């Protein structure tokens, strides 16, 4: 499964290095209300409008677990093919910050709700690798401090305070910046398929902390064999990298920085670093010594989180088909693995494709989607959810191509028409006389007309059969582009007595 590591090495001044990457992803759970309060989770509300007394840490307030959030975490765990823990605990992570009203974050420390799982990622060269999931746990989000609203005051917005997050922690199983970005993309696809997180990185619904270390060639294999971290380098954690592109850039920069330090005779200090997307570099935030002592302990306000296996089984039954299974099905239906993986990356795209491909050739449908529809969406800056022509309408167009009602060229014109003007493709074809002419009588008449007008060309083509293409073009012109080119070719050959290979 894992290809030779050759292309995963990074060249330093003196030797080659391996990069090892692990990730902690914070994914905001899709739910109406917060993890421990009834306050709304709507994004973009006026500051401090979605805040209950619980979220604001008022005296005597107590957290009450939101069952929907627990269900969403279990659902995600199942989607990650992970172990679901029927008993888990909530702990308090204590630290002072103005946007943390209780003075602690309720999280799961020792006993998370979801244990080990895995995510399969597809790389461009067709390689697939498994990234191990260490755990998934539930925790509260903090509020937001606003430092740019007033010259000497800071403001706090608690709308986000108490919103449910899933922290998904991977094993250090990624080896290149491409893999890291591909992992996050795949994870995003999975939670979006599951409906447990909207994956919206711009709104902060998904944020990643990336752990990067470098080691000598062979160190990683040794780690996979023994499970001992000794053969890996010291890791640095890069906080809050909030786009796929930045992840790749941050990993690349950080790995090169570490190699430079080590090759220069220095050592890597375990620390938390911040990625500056403007400068394209990481810089130190705090060292291990400055790290907070969070004084974790079990939250006495909450009982252990316990549920039955039957409840988990019931959730499992409602799971949708996930990207991997969908991809396998698409491949079985005739698509290349690459085409299939592109289509399943977004559930909406895959759904659109499925409707588009009903009863027509899979490959033809995929090509039509990739070349015609996605091309036009790209041109217009639209996404698949706002495509102006329905999948059913496109399906009709493809059918008309395959039953030779229209030519491929006319089909593109047809799509342009319905794209901008709307309408039913079949009716447009009828109304505008776009049907392909396969009637040999009409074609023969056109051929005779072309021959009569160009007697010199007839002699030329007999000597040089390749010139028949010129005749085909003229006949097409004569028929207003509606003649079936295959039929035209065949009729020309017979009429001009051309050899087959001509």
């Amino acid at each position: 499964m894992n290809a030779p590591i050759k292309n995963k090495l990074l060249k330093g001044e003196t030797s080659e290095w391996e990069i090892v990457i692990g990730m902690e992803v914070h994914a905001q759970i899709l739910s109406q209300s917060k993890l421990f309060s009834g306050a709304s989770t709507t994004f973009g509300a006026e500051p401090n409008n979605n805040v209950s007394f619980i979220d604001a840490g008022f005296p005597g307030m107590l957290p009450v677990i939101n069952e929907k959030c627990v269900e969403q975490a279990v659902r995600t765990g199942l989607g990650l093919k992970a172990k679901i823990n029927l008993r888990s605990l909530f702990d308090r992570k204590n630290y002072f910050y103005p946007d943390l009203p209780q003075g602690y974050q309720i999280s799961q420390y020792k006993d998370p709700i979801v244990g080990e799982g895995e995510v399969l990622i597809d790389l461009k060269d067709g390689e697939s690798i498994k990234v191990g999931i260490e755990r998934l746990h539930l925790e509260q989000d903090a509020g937001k401090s606003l430092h740019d609203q007033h010259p000497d005051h800071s403001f706090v917005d608690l709308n986000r305070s108490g919103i449910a997050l899933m922290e998904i922690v991977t094993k250090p199983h990624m080896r290149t910046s491409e893999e890291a970005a591909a992992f996050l993309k795949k994870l995003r696809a999975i939670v979006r398929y599951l409906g447990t997180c909207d994956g919206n990185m711009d709104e902060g619904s998904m944020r990643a902390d990336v752990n990067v270390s470098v080691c000598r060639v062979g160190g990683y294999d040794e780690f996979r064999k023994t499970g001992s971290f000794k053969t890996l380098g010291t890791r640095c954690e890069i906080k809050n990298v909030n786009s796929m592109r930045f992840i790749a850039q941050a990993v690349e920069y950080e790995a090169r920085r570490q190699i430079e330090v080590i090759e220069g005779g220095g050592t890597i200090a375990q620390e938390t670093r911040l990625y500056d997307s403007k400068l394209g570099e990481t810089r130190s935030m705090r060292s291990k010594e400055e790290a907070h002592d969070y004084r974790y302990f079990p939250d006495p306000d909450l009982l252990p989180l316990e549920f039955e296996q039957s409840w988990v089984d019931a959730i499992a039954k409602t799971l949708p088909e996930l990207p991997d299974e969908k991809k396998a099905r698409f491949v079985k239906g005739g698509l290349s693995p690459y085409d299939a993986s592109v289509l399943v990356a977004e559930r909406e795209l895959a759904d659109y494709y499925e409707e588009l491909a009903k009863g027509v050739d899979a490959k033809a449908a995929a090509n039509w989607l990739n070349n015609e529809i996605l091309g036009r969406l790209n041109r217009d800056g639209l996404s698949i959810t706002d495509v102006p022509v329905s999948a059913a309408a496109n399906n009709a167009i493809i059918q008309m191509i395959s039953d030779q009602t229209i030519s491929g060229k006319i089909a593109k014109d047809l799509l342009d028409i319905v794209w901008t003007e709307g309408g039913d493709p079949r009716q447009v074809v009828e109304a505008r006389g776009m049907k392909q002419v396969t009637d040999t009588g009409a074609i023969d008449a056109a051929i005779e007309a072309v021959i009569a007008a160009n007697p010199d060309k007839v002699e030329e083509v007999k000597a040089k059969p390749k010139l028949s293409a010129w005749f085909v073009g003229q006949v097409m012109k004569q028929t207003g582009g509606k003649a079936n080119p295959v039929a035209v070719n065949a009729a020309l050959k017979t009429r001009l007595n051309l050899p087959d290979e001509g």
Partner: protein
Amino acid sequence: MSDLISMTLAEARDAIRAKKISSRELTGAFVSAIEKARPLNAFITEAGEQALTMADAADKRIAAGQIGALEGLPLAIKDLFCTKGVRTTAASKILGNFVPPYESTVTQNLWDAGAVMLGKTNLDEFAMGSSNETSAFGNVINPWRAKNSNVNLVPGGSSGGSSAAVAADLCLAATGTDTGGSIRQPAAVTGRVGLKPTYGRCSRFGVVAFASSLDQAGPMTKTVKDAAIMLKTMASVDAKDSTSVDIEVPDYEKLLEGGIKGLRVGIPKEYRIDGVPAEINALWTRGAEWLKAQGAEIVEVSLPHTKYALPTYYIVAPAEASSNLARYDGVKFGYRAEGVRDITDLYEKSRGQGFGAEVQRRILIGTYVLSAGYYDAYYSRAQKLRTLIKRDFEQAFEKCDVLLTPTTPGPAFGVGAKTSDPLEMYLQDVFTVTVNLAGLPGISVPAGLSENGLPLGLQLIGKAFDEATLLRAALAVETAADFKHSPAKWWSV
């Protein structure tokens, strides 16, 4: 008027129902008694006007035949319960003039039953103390004085304002909270009844948290029967408190009847502690004899981990407190220090100025025992001991139905007598903390006077959620002790 205020809760209830008195009359009598008793400093906030309004509303309901379980009965509320629209302080400067926009579930239950709120009683700051001397609003004076003495004594703590208010006839009954003995100890040293229910019996929603796994609200009353009446209304399962328990709340008053014939009463041998005065042990022995005389069977039992209870408590409770009190940071509500440089300075000054010495001590202890490198040595071991202490009780309850012990190691002591030595102060809870650690119900019943004429209590400990049996045993002690003493009302003259 003094007849009105010296009534028990049950007597007043019956008088109101029989329309012999109105709630307004009764409430008015308490409002004026509270005004006269200001030297005791039992109340942080008097709510006389509001009380009379509530009383009038109750009288209207009574006239309309809508009579709740506590209709028109004036109560005092420990100032740890959040009361909507009425300042709630936890006896701390750090809450400033915090006025909760919500009501605690326990007090809501009381108002729903028709009760009247007289005011908010004083307590040790954040309920941390055994003498009501850590309050930012000044200490409370025990209505009791020793024989031939004018020395001011402490009313116990942390529910010292409530205990003083009940003993001085400033209310029919009061609410308290008990984390390590804060209901039972003050009840004992003021000669009244204090009941700490099973953990989870009363909702903690809206009660300012001290140590969440130990805190429990309960009634402080003149009689055992009054405690039964109060508990019935205070207790409830609550969707807003995940640790409240969904077990039916029975009619405790009705279940008082029937006597204790055949009841097995355990005497834990480890509760004979060196240095405890002989009169305490003598009272304990007498208590056992009273119960035996009424048909109970006395059995000796062992609670071998008792000696670890205080150290365990003083790790668990401060640990939870250090986290629970982190929200008082000068940012959102309550006290904020002036003239600060930055956020760290704001935290340090607000908390340094806002919290008193005892609260700061416990926050420091709690922070320390949870710190990396110390967690296993302290917090983790304390949790293990807590499990062992719980198991001690489970094993003891295989042999008996209730346990009988002293409530405190001595009677009320003088103001300032123990403030310089925290460890000696902590010893006040030696007989009561085990009950909180095990989550069990416990009650203190006045059982006699010390040599110098001060009240002493006996404690009964019951099985989880078996408050009914506990109250029946308590009634037997109360009946036999026939404690009729009340403090002279020296403050009114």
